[in-house]
């Protein structure tokens, strides 16, 4: 399809990674880029394509992580089932949030999403009897694919690559299909779209629910990959911001943007960790200062993000051969 070659190159390189690279450090980076890229892409489905900016998407990530971890530790259920349960729960909450989005626009919706993720954070960290409270849950390692007890990082690359490509296709669908055009119409002018017979509410609810479910899937995989679920991390506003920031940096409402943004953020994080290694809290602070500053500067000079910016540059240059 037209205009998808950068994505094809990106995902092909990611798929080649495990074949060429053996270094676990680099493979770990690849897994995280694809996983965080997938969460940012899932955020983009609601925030970019449907125009419903959420700063509470960590709630869905946490639902996925907790579903997989709790079902696994308490009833020895496979994390794949846990993943499914998390996705179903997230869909249910996503639908609720979707209906709420019809009543609340702009900053009101943002505030509601923050409150929602905070409620889940408090429930997860205080309901000691069920969730193990603020201590978090160590995910037991049970070897095998069915239990997702995998030490080989190349297998992990394959698993998260499937998720990442699936999310890219979802985004592509939203960009090019009739439904996608309708959703864009709703985003740009809901009243006009309604008057043309576009089922605005149904589309928005579906987009937010899909975004929520896919975020939960990523959360469940993340919990198995990392092996520990901390309520103050998986439900944090910082994590919600991370999803949003990757999508914004790369290009909000572009299919490849979230992956590019996630890769850049991880690269920055890794570089600073190597540069200032061992400072602990200070290190976290430094890259978050850069995060915040980049966000402010981006909003001022290039709120559309990097992908459209690069695209513009390429188009302005006379191109030999078929137009990209």
């Amino acid at each position, binding site marked *: 399809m037209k205009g998808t070659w950068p994505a094809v190159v990106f995902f092909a390189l990611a798929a080649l990674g495990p074949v060429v690279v053996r270094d676990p450090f680099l493979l770990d980076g690849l897994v995280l880029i694809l996983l965080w890229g997938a969460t940012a892409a899932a955020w983009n489905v609601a925030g970019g394509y449907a125009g419903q900016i959420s700063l509470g998407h960590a709630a869905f990530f946490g639902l996925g992580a907790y579903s997989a971890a709790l079902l696994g530790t308490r009833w020895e259920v496979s994390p794949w089932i846990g993943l499914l349960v998390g996705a179903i729960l997230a869909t249910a909450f996503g639908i609720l949030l979707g209906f709420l989005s019809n009543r609340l626009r702009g900053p009101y919706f*943002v505030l*509601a999403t923050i*409150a929602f993720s905070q409620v889940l954070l*408090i429930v997860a960290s205080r309901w000691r009897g069920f969730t193990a409270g603020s201590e978090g849950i160590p995910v037991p390692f049970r070897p095998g694919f069915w239990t997702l007890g995998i030490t080989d990082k190349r297998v992990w690359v394959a698993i998260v690559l499937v998720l990442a490509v699936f999310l890219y296709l979802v985004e592509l669908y939203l960009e090019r299909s009739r439904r996608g055009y309708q959703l864009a119409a709703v985003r740009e002018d809901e009243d006009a779209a309604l008057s043309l017979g576009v089922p605005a509410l149904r589309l928005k609810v579906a987009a937010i629910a899909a975004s929520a479910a896919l975020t939960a899937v990523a959360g469940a995989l993340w919990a198995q990959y990392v092996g520990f679920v901390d309520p103050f991390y998986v439900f944090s506003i910082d994590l919600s911001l991370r999803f949003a920031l990757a999508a914004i940096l790369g290009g909000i409402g572009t299919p490849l943007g979230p992956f590019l943004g996630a890769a850049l953020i991880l690269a920055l994080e890794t570089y600073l960790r190597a540069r200032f290694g061992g400072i602990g809290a200070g290190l976290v602070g430094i890259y978050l200062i850069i995060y*915040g500053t980049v966000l402010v500067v981006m909003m001022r000079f290039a709120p559309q993000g990097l992908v459209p910016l690069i695209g513009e540059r390429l188009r302005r240059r006379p191109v030999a051969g078929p137009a990209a």
Partner: protein
Amino acid sequence: MHVVPQLLVSTILLGGIYALIAVGLTLIFGVMRVVNFAHGEFLMLGMYLAFWAFALLRLDPYVTLVLSLPLIFGFGWLSYRMVMRPVIHASHNVQVFTTVGLSIALQNVALVLWSADSQFVRTSYYTVVVRLGSAVLNLAQLIAFAVAVLCTAALFAFLRWSYTGKVMRATAQDRAAASLMGIDTGRVFALTWAVGVTCVGVAGVLLAPIYPVYPTVGLQFVLIAYVAVVLGGLGDMAGALIASLIVAAVEVIGSYVIGTAWKEVLYLLLFIGILVVRPAGLFGQRGAEAIGT
């Protein structure tokens, strides 16, 4: 029933401080139509200001309060010029992420400079309590409440009677018309932002002798302020005052009845409930939230 007066007094004291935080937030929203997601960070900076003045210069927080007013106001003005002015006519989403970016940056500057440890301002009158009938209250809380009420009253008077205040209200009502009447709305926005920041900065200084200071301290207070501001109707000053008392009552009574561990859930659920049932707030105009303006 001996707890009732205590609960009542605690509610009013807490509500007064919440009001000062909420009033700044709602003022900025009312005039500029911006939800300031960095509001809590200005509170945090106010608290650190009081802490460092106390730790390094042995300045009492209440002395700091008076001395630092121009400093906080100036910082607010500067943050408007550098961060907010370029995006003041941009879309809601751009503004939301600009203030979010500001919030992340400020929070982590504090983290890098002053570490994540909780710091305390231990004044000599830290443990002094005042008895009022059967209720007992902390002196620092009482002073914070009194100053907060004074500041809020001063702000109301300023908006009601001063020429500048009228200009601000005119801009809030219709910025296009205000600008046609010759009002320099750019200056009004800068002033509004700086005044809003000053309110919350003052609240921070007042809170320093009562609560520990750490880089993310703003979040817990600003969440309460969001609840109060939405409950009162975004942009509605008087509504924010009454709503602050309601939120404080929910918190105080909730802590007493079901314990402090779950009190946050109470007001967050209250918040989501209001957003669902009556997003324009108790006193706001119906439909304001749907336009998103």
